[in-house]
Structure formats: structure tokens, C-alpha cells
């Protein structure tokens, strides 16, 4: 099918007002009667549903263009208003213009010299600066012209023109009617208008007072036929009917020479109807209503607001070929896979074009039909006709099918889809995954990709989109697939890494002295999907390091400290050394496998590419979990039992702290405490006490970690999988200082926090220092303090989330058009420079290590080779 296109370029757009002549010229019908249909139900000529305005009934032909329903775009009509009325949306402009022009000669209220001067500076201005500055100048001018009380041209005295809301102009407390207003505006010379920012060629101010009203085509206000056969007209048609009716009555009354009062009343009524036709939510005006009492939806309501055309239909689009449900974890999936329920896979389809080579393959899907799983739902013929595949049509379609047809087949394993979780703050919030069709009704993902999506499984839902064209699929695969997203452009390290069990499992496995039987090792490796065990030493027992090495690339050389290095740099186990793909010594922990810091992952990704990197991560992840399955991995209360020695040490820490606190308070009471710069003595005391008490908890943490009986909980902390020494301390030794609004607890009763303390007590207990541990249980007053912090932090998160979200939105909107040019400058869409060198150092963060370029490593790499 050949399509022919005409390519045209828009060279300019001009905005202006529509004058009566333009309105009449563009109209195809003059509307004279409020009646809609005649007795036969045919649209009345000259009525609001006139067939010259377009057609909304099937079978009828448009009298203007001769096209049928859905082909005819609709045509405008007009009505001649018996008396002019003000256009409510331009009322402010009209008021401004009235105020700065003379009431008798309609010249601008500026002296001739001033006018000449402004005209000159205007010319100069338009050469060098943009419209924004011109607008500022015009504003100044308007303010100046308004203040004069005598016309410099005809010397007439100027009265202040006032606007009585919504649409009445008063001069000297006397009403000036729209006819008079229009007459004044007509007299303003073109040159004067150009000075106040009105282009007289396209926008004469008198056009803001309506003498003819354009009638929108029927196609934008179609009537609905109810089941009963009754017709229900659109809100706009109702409103227009009112206008036409009142207009007719006004005409009749004027022609009959009715008293002025009656005419004035009708005129005001016409003004009301025209105003509400444009905007039904003008303040001081009662909105026009249906008989049922609900307000009519007129022009402004159609465009503005959340349900309006812009925010609802233009900015907010809905999409087909998408799915959304609750998510769940499945570590057996590869990291770049997503588990899709079968029922979803049968609704979501991928269009595939038939060629001679895939004809049989695609016909098999058609044969299966829409209800049998790997089937198809539609075929598309080369002429663009879509045919649904059903049991009846199946046979016929199978015969008809040939190369060039498109089959919309069910989603299959390996198809490319986009996966997304809101809020999409990241580019990693929307990544491309491969489909794995699974049983069940939830979307499944590897827990390693929880971090980039910021997902957990407490009821989170995620969205899935199926790209429908080859281009979209290619783009998704190359730019968005999970493996290409591992290194974050924010800090140049991996966002995806081992978590939780994956780390503690590998930590245990790679400990010196960890051994498993050959059979167990093969068992584990096989469960990771490995089939080649040639790299596993053929011994009766293999070490954990040997098992781990099987996953490593054969030629990898790597050296990096682990978490032990800080405390025991001499210990060979504190340095991970990999030579020729063999883990020689050192154990794995979060500093090599974790997210963010995962240096081993980072190195493999860099040396072997995204595909290998993601495969390695997936295997290591599952290896950790499988290792824990061998002996089991649990935690209990006894994990945090302290030794007698530990108990004593904690006690002595607390005693020491108590003494120091008392000393500090005494110093303060004696007035000997030296205030820190910029703080009062009270503030200094508070600050020092807080420091002191926080140090107590940290010290207790270190002691507790060293004096706990060896357990799985300790393993988790040491490997960096979960928890820290502070958590151990809180459970076994002391919970520590509670803070509300960043300082010690200072609220409650007069001069004290709770009624069980003495007034003015500055001691640690009275201000939220919890000496008990979670295991021993807290004292009543400690419970109160704990609850206070709990509430405080809850408030904090509840208030911070929307605030930071809005801040982010503003940032994103402000920076959305920034890009780095080839000369490393950051520029916006108009070429304006924002930075002269990206980030001031020109480093591509995504290709660096944590924002830095490791020059040492690069040099040593070059020297070695």
C-alpha cells in the first residue's frame, strides 16, 4: 500500500482577534432561529443544527462541503447581535485601553513629545532585546497614561473609568454602554495602539466588543440520542439557544419601539448569556444551569482545569498494550527478566509481519486462536483491515494468510517489554525486561532490581508496556535493557547488586576453611543453571572459594580490600585477591558484591561488558541463596546475648558517661561552661550532652559486637548484608538518646519532660536517654520518649515526601532541555550556555568510578601490559 504525503512547513503563526468581517467571512450560515429540528426531525435551516454547519447524523450530507458524517470537519456560523456586548475574556484589556485614552478624542493620554520619544526607543529596543523587555516597557507606559486627568491633545477633562464586575463600565458613576465603549475604541488611531502593544493589523480593540457572535460547528457539540429515541442536546447548544432566543426578542422589541427599560433589561440578559457561553464560572455571576440544577459546561470549562482538554486529553494520555498488577519476588528469574501471568500474555500482543521464512511459524499461532496459549488474536491485512481470529473465521483466515500480512500473536518468552514503577524519578525507573510467562496472577521480578525501582513486595504495583514496532523494540533493547542500566549516571557505580541473603551466603561460602563435598558443590552449581563443571577441582571435598571461582571469568585478575581491611589490614583474608579467575584469598562481602560499592561487580561489568556482568550477578545472587539452604540460616533472641565480660564493659561505659554528664551540668551551673561561637551557654550544653550521649551508644555498639557469642546475626552485620553494630547495641545494651527535632527531648510539662522528674532536671534520663535495651525492656518513661521520636520521624517522612517530590518536579522541568554539546558545554534548547564545562571537570560520571577517574589504576594497567 503506497501512501502519499504532502510535506509543508509552518513558517509563522500570528495571533490576533476576530473582527466582525472575519467572522462573517469564515461562516457558512447565518443563524436566526432558536429552533433545532422541524416536525420530521430534520434540522431547521437557519437553526443551531443547520446542515450547513456540518453533520452529526449518519446518512445526511453536509450542505457546505458535501461530505458525510466523520468526514466533514464542521463549519462555523454566526449570529448578528441586536446590540453589542462585551467579550468577558477581554474585559481587562478593554478597561485598560479606556483608561489610557481620551474620552472625547480617543488619543493616547500622552503628550506628543512623549509619544515620539517612546516610538523611537521602541524601535531601538526591538533590535537588541526580546519581547519580554518590550512588554515591560509597555506596562510602564500604560501605568503612566492612566494617571493623566487632562487630555494633552484636546484638553478635555478625564473622568476615571471604573469596572463594575462583571461587565459594566462606569464613568463618573454613570454607566457607559457597550455601544459607547465601542465607539470610543473605534476612534483610537492605529499608531497609538502600536505603542501600547496592540498590533492594529490583527487586533483592533473594538473587536473585543462583540457585534456578531461566531457559532461553533455542530461537530463540536453533537447531540446524543437516548434509548427512548429522545434527543439530548449538548450544553453548548443549550447556551446558544438561549442567546439566539434573547437576541430575537431584543430585535423585536427594538423594532416595535419598546420602552428603553425593557430594552436595557433584555440587553443585560443577552450580555449574561454571551458571558456564560464563554465562561460559566465568572465570579459575581450565577452560573447558567440545567433544569436539573447542575451548571452547564461551556467553552472555558472544556479547555481549562483538570478535566479540561489540556490536562485531561493532551497532557494525560492513556495507552494500549499495557498491564498493571501487584509484584512479587522470584530470584530464579534472571535479573533482566520479568515474570508475566499467562492471562496477561494472552491479552497483550505483539504484531509480527509474515514473510516466506516465518510463515509456518506464525500460522501455528493463528491455528491456536485467541484462547489457546501461544496463539494470536488478530490478523492485519496489507490494506490495513483488522480481522479478529475466532473459531468461525479461523479456517478462512488461515487460507487467506500470506506474506505481507501481520499477525498479532500472544506475548512469548523472550519478548521485549518495558517495566515501570511510579514515581518515575530515575531513568532506571523504567527499564526493558525479557518476558517469562509464568503461572499465577502477579508480575514477578528478581529481587536484585528492587533497588533501581525502589520497590518492595508489601503490595506495590508495577506497569508493563509492550512495544509494538521494530523501532520501539530495538530502542528499548539497546537503550533501556536492565544490563545497560546497572551503572548509575548519578555516581558512576552500580545501582544493582547483591542484597541480603545473596551477600551473607557468599560471605559464608568464601570463608577460609569452608568446605563442601564435591557432590554438594555440583548440586549447588547446577541449580544456578551451570552445566560445565570442568573448572571445579575434582577432589572429594572442595573449598567454598573454589566453588565461588567457578562463576568468575577465567582470565580475571582482581584485587580489592573488603570490610575487614579497616581493622585488620595485615590479615590476608582482608584483601580479596583473584588471579586468573581463581579466588586466592579474602572473603566476599558487601564492599565487593553489594549495591553501590560493589567493586567486583563494577570491574566485571567494565571488563566483560553488560551481558556477562548481569549473568555473573544473577548467578552470584542465586549462589548466595543456595549456600544458605545447605545448613539453613536463622536468627533468634539468643543471638544477641552478651558475654559476662560484655555486660560489665557496657556497665562501665554507662557509669563513665553518667559521670561526664554530671560534670558538664555542674560546669554549666557554676557558669564555667564556655559557649561555642554563635551559641548561648544553654545551647552549648545541649549540644555537648547530645554528642556525649550519642558517643555512648556508638561505644556500646562496638563493645556489643565484640562481646556477643558468634551467631548468624553477627554474620549478617559483618558481611554488610543487613544491620549494624548500633542495632546490636540497641537490642543488647542500650537504646540510646532519643531526639525530637534534632535535639534532646525538651517538651512536656513546665520545666520538665514528664511529671516523674524534678523541675529543671538537666540529667540524661530526664531528657530522653534510654539506658535499657530492647531485650531487657524499657522503663515507662523511656517508652514515652521512644514514642515521641517515633511520632516525630513519622511526621517528618509524611511531610518531606510531597515536598521533595515537588522540588524534584520543578528541577526536572527547569532542566529538561539541557544537553551536553560536543564542546562539553551544557546548553539549553536555544543554545544558551549553562555550564562551560560539564560539571566543571567534564567527567562523564557514568563512565567513571564514583565520579572520579582512577588515574593510578589506569597507569598500573598500562604498565603491566
Amino acid at each position, binding site marked *: 500500500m503506497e501512501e502519499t504525503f504532502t510535506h509543508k512547513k509552518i513558517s509563522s503563526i500570528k495571533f490576533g482577534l476576530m473582527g466582525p468581517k472575519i467572522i462573517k467571512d469564515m461562516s457558512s450560515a447565518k443563524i436566526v432561529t432558536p429552533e433545532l429540528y422541524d416536525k420530521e426531525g430534520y434540522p431547521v435551516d437557519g437553526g443551531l443544527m443547520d446542515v450547513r454547519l456540518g453533520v452529526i447524523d449518519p446518512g445526511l450530507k453536509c450542505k457546505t462541503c458535501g461530505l458525510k458524517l466523520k468526514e466533514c470537519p464542521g463549519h462555523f456560523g454566526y449570529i448578528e447581535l441586536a446590540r453589542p456586548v462585551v467579550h468577558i475574556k477581554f474585559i481587562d484589556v478593554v478597561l485598560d485601553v479606556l483608561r489610557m485614552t481620551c474620552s472625547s478624542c480617543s488619543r493616547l493620554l500622552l503628550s506628543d513629545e512623549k509619544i515620539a520619544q517612546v516610538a523611537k526607543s521602541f524601535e531601538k529596543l526591538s533590535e537588541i532585546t526580546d519581547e519580554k523587555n518590550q512588554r515591560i516597557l509597555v506596562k510602564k507606559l500604560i501605568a503612566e497614561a492612566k494617571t493623566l486627568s487632562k487630555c494633552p491633545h484636546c484638553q478635555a477633562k478625564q473622568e476615571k473609568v471604573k469596572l463594575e464586575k462583571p461587565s459594566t463600565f462606569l464613568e463618573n458613576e454613570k454607566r457607559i454602554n457597550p455601544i459607547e465603549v465601542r465607539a470610543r475604541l473605534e476612534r483610537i488611531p492605529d499608531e497609538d495602539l502600536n505603542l501600547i502593544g496592540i498590533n492594529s493589523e490583527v487586533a483592533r480593540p473594538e473587536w473585543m466588543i462583540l457585534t456578531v457572535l461566531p457559532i461553533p460547528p455542530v461537530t463540536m457539540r453533537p447531540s446524543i440520542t437516548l434509548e427512548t429515541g429522545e434527543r439530548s442536546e449538548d450544553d453548548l447548544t443549550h447556551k446558544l439557544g438561549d442567546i439566539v432566543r434573547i437576541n430575537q426578542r431584543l430585535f423585536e422589541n427594538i423594532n416595535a419601539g419598546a420602552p428603553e427599560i425593557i430594552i436595557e433589561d433584555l440587553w443585560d440578559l443577552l450580555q449574561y448569556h454571551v458571558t456564560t457561553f464563554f465562561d460559566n464560572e465568572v465570579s459575581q455571576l450565577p452560573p447558567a444551569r440545567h433544569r436539573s440544577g447542575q451548571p452547564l459546561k461551556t467553552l472555558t470549562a472544556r479547555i481549562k482545569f483538570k478535566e479540561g482538554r489540556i490536562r485531561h486529553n493532551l497532557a494525560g494520555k492513556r495507552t494500549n498494550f499495557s498491564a498493571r498488577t501487584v509484584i512479587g519476588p522470584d530470584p530464579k528469574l534472571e535479573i533482566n527478566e520479568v515474570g508475566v501471568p499467562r492471562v496477561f500474555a494472552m491479552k497483550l500482543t505483539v504484531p509480527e509481519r509474515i514473510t516466506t521464512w516465518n510463515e509456518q511459524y506464525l500460522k501455528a499461532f493463528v491455528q491456536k486462536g485467541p484462547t489457546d496459549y501461544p496463539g494470536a488474536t488478530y490478523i492485519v491485512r496489507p490494506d490495513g483491515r483488522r480481522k479478529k481470529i475466532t473459531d468461525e473465521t479461523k479456517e478462512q483466515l488461515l487460507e487467506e494468510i500470506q506474506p505481507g500480512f501481520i499477525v498479532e500473536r500472544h506475548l512469548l518468552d523472550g519478548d521485549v517489554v518495558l517495566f515501570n514503577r511510579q514515581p518515575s524519578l530515575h531513568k532506571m525507573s523504567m527499564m526493558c525486561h525479557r518476558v517469562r510467562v509464568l503461572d499465577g496472577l502477579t508480575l514477578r521480578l528478581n529481587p536484585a532490581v528492587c533497588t533501581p525501582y525502589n520497590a518492595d513486595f508489601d503490595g506495590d504495583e508495577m506497569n508493563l508496556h509492550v512495544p509494538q514496532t521494530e523501532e520501539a523494540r530495538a530502542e528499548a533493547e539497546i537503550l533501556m535493557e536492565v544490563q545497560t542500566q546497572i551503572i548509575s549516571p548519578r555516581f558512576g557505580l552500580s545501582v544493582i547488586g547483591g542484597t541480603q541473603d545473596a551477600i551473607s551466603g557468599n560471605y559464608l561460602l568464601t570463608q577460609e576453611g569452608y568446605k563442601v563435598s564435591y557432590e554438594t558443590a555440583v548440586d549447588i552449581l547446577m541449580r544456578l543453571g551451570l552445566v560445565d563443571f570442568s573448572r571445579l577441582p575434582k577432589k572429594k571435598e572442595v573449598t567454598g572459594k573454589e566453588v565461588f571461582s567457578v562463576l568468575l571469568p577465567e582470565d580475571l585478575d582482581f584485587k580489592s580490600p573488603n570490610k575487614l581491611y579497616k581493622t585488620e589490614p595485615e590479615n590476608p583474608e582482608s584483601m580479596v585477591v583473584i588471579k586468573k579467575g581463581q579466588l586466592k584469598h579474602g572473603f566476599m562481602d558487601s564492599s565487593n558484591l553489594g549495591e553501590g560499592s560493589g567493586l567486583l561487580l563494577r570491574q566485571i561489568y567494565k571488563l566483560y561488558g553488560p551481558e556477562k556482568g548481569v549473568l555473573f550477578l544473577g548467578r552470584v545472587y542465586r549462589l548466595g541463596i543456595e549456600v544458605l539452604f545447605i545448613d539453613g540460616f536463622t536468627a533468634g533472641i539468643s543471638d544477641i546475648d552478651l558475654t559476662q565480660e560484655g555486660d560489665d564493659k557496657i556497665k562501665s561505659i554507662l557509669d563513665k558517661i553518667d559521670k561526664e554528664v554530671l560534670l558538664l551540668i555542674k560546669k554549666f551551673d557554676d557558669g564555667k561552661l564556655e559557649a561555642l561561637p554563635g551559641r548561648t551557654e544553654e545551647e552549648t550544653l545541649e549540644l555537648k550532652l547530645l554528642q556525649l550521649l550519642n558517643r555512648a551508644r556508638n561505644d556500646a555498639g562496638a563493645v556489643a559486637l565484640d562481646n556477643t557469642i558468634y551467631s548468624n546475626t553477627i554474620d549478617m552485620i559483618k558481611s554488610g548484608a543487613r544491620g549494624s553494630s548500633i542495632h546490636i547495641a540497641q537490642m543488647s545494651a542500650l537504646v540510646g538518646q532519643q531526639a525530637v527535632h534534632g535535639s534532646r527531648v525538651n517538651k512536656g510539662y513546665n520545666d520538665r519532660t514528664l511529671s516523674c522528674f524534678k523541675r529543671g532536671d538537666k540529667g540524661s534520663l530526664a531528657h530522653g536517654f534510654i539506658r535499657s535495651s530492647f531485650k531487657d525492656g524499657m522503663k515507662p518513661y523511656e517508652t514515652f520518649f521512644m514514642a515521641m521520636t517515633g511520632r516525630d520521624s513519622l511526621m517528618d517522612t509524611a511531610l518531606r515526601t510531597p515536598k521533595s517530590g515537588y522540588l524534584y518536579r520543578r528541577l526536572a522541568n527547569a532542566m529538561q532541555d539541557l544537553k551536553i554539546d560536543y*564542546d562539553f*558545554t551544557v*546548553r539549553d534548547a536555544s*543554545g*544558551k*550556555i*549553562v*555550564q*562551560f*564545562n560539564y*560539571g*566543571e*571537570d*567534564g*567527567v562523564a560520571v557514568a563512565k567513571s568510578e564514583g*565520579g572520579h577517574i582512577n588515574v593510578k589504576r589506569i597507569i598500573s594497567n598500562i604498565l603491566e601490559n
Partner: protein
Amino acid sequence: MVEQLKHNLIPQHEKLSEEQKQRLFEKYNISFKELPKIHVSDAAIRHLDPKYGDVIKITRKSPTAGRAIFYRGVSRD
């Protein structure tokens, strides 16, 4: 009185000569319009007696690059 210009947080501001200015425009293939702006009455350049159309070179300390150079065009008020 505090000498503002010697304050740690005020970077060094210099006025470019006409020749330097042209070279800058050529280097980035820009005109005056594409430069970021600085107000004529900005306290940091008052001592340079700036005029509309001048270009100010700012040398700052930078956490990423150590020393970073930035240019701003003097705007009218």
C-alpha cells in the same frame, strides 16, 4: 568594614578585553546572547566599572575540578 571582595566565598572576577571577548565567542561559537548573565550593579563586579556588553571572567574553586572558569555577560538593568 568587611572587605567583601576578599571574602573566601567571593570568587575572582575579571573583565575581558575586547580581543579576549572575541576569542571566547569564537571558541564556543556563540554571540553575547548565549552567555549567562550578571547584573551591572552586582556587588562583585562594581570595582570593574562594568558596562552592558562586557564579559566577566569568574575563577572559582570547584569541588570537582579544583579550579573552574566561568564567563558571564553584563546585562542592563
